[in-house]
């Protein structure tokens, strides 16, 4: 089987872009990726794409060209982009096609996401009585985690402070102003223990990636990176998931743990091999818990790691170097692909002011979506 390379990347800046539809942002990212690999749309043999609130990805062919390529729409909540990428990876691995695109875009209204109980197999009263909010889930999961493993509110604020600092170094980020830790701690409480500045917001943006057989990569770029592993897993028994009217008493592992283990196994690598990581930070608590769920530290170690700056850009394991969801917002369809876009930039050595020092060679990404699935990737030089 052929290995898979990423040879072109494109982005539409994240944030709010009045007058530009989500679909148009997707087209912008796709054209940028084509330009990056110096190929034409007609050379793209297949595509996977998705958005959660901005239309069907395959309608992009009206703008990109009616080449007749197979274009599959993907919908997997916050893991939509990750799922598009994994589908593209598998398609090339299978030998069916040589080169294809994974694209994700979105454009959400302001404020917290609307939830539809019936669409996720739940009863209407659950939403009607005000129990069905992602923000509550995040707050309750980290609340218990802080209690069990001694994580402080100060550490929650340090995560957000880092996100805004990294975002200020990223011209494509939505939030590009540093925000001080005390300001984050003292901002409006949204869902205890999480304040306004610890949360990401629904937003807009688009990412496109071009993937091809590894042996063809040199045709398109002098700086190919290789997608060594990509895995997605849904929730096991006993995991603490969003939108759960009840949970098992017996607590179990998360889907992230399973996806992460599968990814490392597929890559034949260990955590010590990873030089930079993008971990789903829907809010500060998520980044903290995902550090351990992805196996980068033990439960509770985050308190010291954050205070020592170990996850800063110049730290031992830089995490969310582009500012993550907190600084970029969360356009659901694009979010998981943004992580890989950032990892490609870092491995190419083209991340500008936020470049991780020391010539990073391996990068990890992790995205989590409702109602309980995680997708992880590892890319290398």
């Amino acid at each position, binding site marked *: 089987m052929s290995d898979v390379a990423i040879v072109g990347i494109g982005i539409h800046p994240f944030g709010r872009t009045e007058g530009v539809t989500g679909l148009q942002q997707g087209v912008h990212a796709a054209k940028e990726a084509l330009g990056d690999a110096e190929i034409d749309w007609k050379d793209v043999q297949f595509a996977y794409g998705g958005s959660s609130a901005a239309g069907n990805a395959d309608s992009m062919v009206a703008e990109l060209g009616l080449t007749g390529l197979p274009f599959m729409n993907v919908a997997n909540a916050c893991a939509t982009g990750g799922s598009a990428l994994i589908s593209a990876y598998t398609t090339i691995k299978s030998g069916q096609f040589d080169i294809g695109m994974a694209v994700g875009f979105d454009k959400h209204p302001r*404020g*917290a996401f*609307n*939830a*539809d*109980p019936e669409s996720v197999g739940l*009863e*209407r*009263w659950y*939403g*009607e*009585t*005000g*129990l*069905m*909010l992602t*923000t*509550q889930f995040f*707050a*309750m*999961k980290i*609340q*218990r985690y802080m*209690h069990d493993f001694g994580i402080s509110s100060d550490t929650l604020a340090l995560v957000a402070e880092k996100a805004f600092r990294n975002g200020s170094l990223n011209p494509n980020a939505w939030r590009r102003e540093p925000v001080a830790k005390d300001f984050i701690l003292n901002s*409006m*409480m*949204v*869902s*205890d*223990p*999480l304040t306004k500045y610890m949360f990401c917001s629904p937003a807009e943006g688009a990412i496109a990636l071009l993937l091809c057989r590894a042996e063809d990569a040199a045709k398109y770029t002098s700086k190919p990176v290789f997608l060594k592993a990509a895995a997605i897993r849904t929730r096991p028994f006993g995991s603490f998931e969003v939108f*759960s*009217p*009840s*949970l*098992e*008493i017996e607590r179990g592992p998360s889907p992230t743990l399973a996806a992460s283990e599968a990814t490392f196994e597929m890559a034949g690598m260990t955590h010590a091999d990873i030089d930079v990581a993008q971990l789903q930070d829907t809010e500060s608590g998520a980044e903290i818990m995902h550090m351990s769920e992805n196996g980068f530290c033990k439960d509770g170690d985050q308190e010291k790691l954050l205070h020592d700056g170990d996850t800063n850009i110049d730290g031992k394991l830089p995490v969310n170097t582009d500012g993550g969801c907190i600084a970029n917002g969360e356009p659901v369809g694009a979010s998981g692909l943004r992580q890989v876009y950032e990892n490609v930039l870092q491995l190419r050595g083209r991340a500008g002011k936020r470049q991780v020092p020391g010539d990073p060679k391996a990068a990890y990404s992790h995205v989590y979506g409702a109602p309980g699935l995680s997708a992880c990737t590892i890319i290398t030089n």
Partner: protein
Amino acid sequence: MTNQKPIADHLFTWPSNSPKLIGSRDTETGRYYFPSKMSNQHEKVELKRRGKLYTWTVQRFLPKTPFIGGDDPETFEPYAIGYIALPGEIMIESRLVEIDPKDLKIGMEMEVTVVPFVKNEEGEDLMIFAFKPVN
């Protein structure tokens, strides 16, 4: 007195002076479910009334649709929610009532109750389950 009506008729025993949540038990695996599942393999069970608070938060902004507990941010009252672990059965997500959020503590003992939520178009009180501290 205002008529009272459960928001859904399969969630708790009602009317009752000591209401209980209604779940189901998988007769093969022994696992508990809430809300109850309808299948040959499930039997309906009344769940324990008391359990310990596993985690909590406070909903401090007005939820969007499909929330029916108000639509005016000016009059919106924050409410506490949490998971209560019913020993040997299941953890239930619920509103927490009769307690100031600042007094909420993981591990505290709580008991199920039924409280009015909002009025429906007929002027009836829609009743929901909630948990309150055991005094």
